[in-house]
């Protein structure tokens, strides 16, 4: 970094380098069938100070972990100007220790801005914004752990570095972030038209040289990925809020890959529903208990 950040502890004056290993990293191996999805652990309300929150984790050997907190609806600051509907903003940040290779800095970089923007587009469609005039809904996503390298390439000549500079790793982070953010918004009790769930599918080169579609691909699976498609999908309304495709793919093939991604998203939606329901049931139980013993008076006399 050219400028040192005076607000943080910066470390040695001379640059430090990441460990150089004597042997290359073990090559990834395919361990799942192309249609098998990974299990998702999704839990709400792990950040109690926030209006709503969720924690998302892919079960091992996958390592993706992220946490989302939602604040709002809260009044927009005077500087934001008038807005007749709710303004949904999203911020995605990688923790410094979350990625393989270089440690990530604290200042927001291009990738984080890009992912934040895509996340915002994907989730703003699910909120009933007209119900909250002059309010802001802020979504914060912190990525604690990624899977694979996030700077790697996708595309036909990925090995030669000719592909597109966005990887399965980065797309996977966005997939998790959309699902997690959508759950957190529901946890905050914000009025929604539907819930968004994200799904991903990829077109990979199989051993026989033919292309095939893989659902929920992982960078750790070691597929020869030609193209990947990510969708944000609202299953109840059958609406797509976001499509993100990377790599080269023919028009006819594209429909097939996208349909697979939608299928993944539909299945993920089941996990989102369960996470939201779990919390709701707990709340209703707690309320039932409270109403059971009515003797408690909530008022406190103000004296002295």
């Amino acid at each position: 970094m050219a400028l040192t950040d005076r607000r943080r502890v910066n470390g040695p004056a001379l640059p430090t380098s990441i460990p150089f290993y004597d042997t290359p990293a073990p090559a990834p191996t395919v361990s799942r069938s192309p249609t098998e999805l990974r299990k998702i652990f999704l839990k709400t309300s792990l950040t109690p100070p926030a209006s709503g929150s969720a924690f998302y984790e892919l079960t091992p050997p996958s390592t993706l972990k992220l946490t989302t907190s939602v604040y709002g609806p809260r009044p927009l600051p005077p500087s934001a100007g008038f807005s007749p509907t709710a303004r949904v903003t999203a911020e995605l940040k990688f923790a410094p220790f979350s990625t393989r290779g270089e440690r990530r800095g604290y200042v927001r970089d291009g990738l984080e801005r890009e992912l934040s923007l895509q996340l915002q587009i994907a989730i703003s469609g699910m909120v009933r914004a007209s119900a909250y005039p002059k309010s802001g809904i802020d979504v914060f996503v912190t990525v604690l752990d990624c899977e694979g390298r996030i700077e790697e390439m996708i595309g036909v000549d990925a090995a030669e570095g000719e592909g597109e500079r966005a990887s399965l790793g980065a797309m996977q982070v966005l997939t998790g972030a959309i699902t997690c953010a959508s759950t957190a918004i529901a946890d905050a009790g914000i009025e929604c038209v539907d819930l968004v769930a994200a799904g991903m599918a990829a077109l990979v080169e199989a051993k026989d040289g033919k292309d095939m579609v893989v659902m929920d691909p992982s960078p750790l699976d070691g597929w020869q990925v030609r193209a990947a498609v990510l969708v944000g999908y609202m299953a109840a309304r059958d609406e797509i809020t976001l499509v993100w495709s990377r790599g080269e793919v023919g028009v006819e093939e594209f429909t097939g890959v996208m349909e697979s991604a939608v299928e993944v998203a539909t299945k993920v939606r089941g996990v989102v529903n369960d996470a939201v329901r779990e919390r709701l049931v707990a709340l209703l139980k707690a309320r039932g208990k409270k109403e059971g013993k009515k003797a408690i008076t909530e008022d406190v006399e103000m004296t002295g």
Partner: protein
Amino acid sequence: MTSTEATETTLSGLTFPAPVFRQIAPQKYLLRHLQSTPSTRPSSRRPDEFRPATLHANALSHAHGSAVVRMGDTAVVAGVRGEVLNLLHGEGKERGAVKLRFEEMEELEEDDDDQGETVRGMGLVVPNLELGTGCTHNYHPGPPSDFAQSTAERLRSLLLDTLHLIPTSTLRITHLDPATGTTDTKAFWVLYIDIVCISLDGNILDAALAATVAALKATKLPIARWDADKEQVVCSRDETRKLDISGGLAFTASFGIVGHKDEEEQENGGDATMKKWVLCDLDEFEEEVVTEKVMVCIRDGEKIAKLEKAGGVVAGTEEMMECVRRAKERYRELEKLVSAV
């Protein structure tokens, strides 16, 4: 509202629901809670009750060591990553440019028993604290707030100036020259400690330090050696070693002190002594209300490493002793938790 109801309200005095009372008179709200028998805090904890701590070590795959510590509604993740600081560039120390930069450091780097002077002087341990994660409504992404910066500085100072947890020897990467038979320091490990708060309900310092110590305890660095041909430090992919934390463990415990003198009783010639409460492990609400705060840092061997007291005139020797006593108990609790790592 009908007129009869209005009269009734005036007769019975003003009443408010508890949340409103808390908003308009937070100090009195806290005091009334403490004055009830048995003395209870708004969070329904006893004054001498710490929030139970939980710990998960090495849950992250890309850090050399990590720990998640949760104390009530405060949760932090600490990750430690090692990077290599090469002392040699090109032909080595003999080169003018490099030699100039390291002239004063060379004196430092040879001595292991220097009270952490090498670690501090060369910046081998880099702790940072991030609160802009949406952990509470006060902090936003972007540059760290004043509070975040001051807390990070307190933490840095504790780690590097007071505790010297990490000895220089454990960060040194040496090379035995077969020709001359001398051992040379070729490089150092630099430990980047990043503490990310994911949920904040007061008392960030205790949680952050506990997570840092636990993460350091859990850290496994790859075995590194100097490759003379490559002129580079090469790490083993399979073999790791634990960090030697010869400084031992250390934990902080934070307290708030509240005093109240009943003036009415004093006027009536009654008991006029001040009633005092020592509150352990303040939450967000208490942190805003309580002005007198004490921080006690206990280290290995149950010695006091640091003691800070800020604001207020309530605490006497007795209260301070009480804080130290409770800090010791907390130290034992956390030590048990972290020793299992």
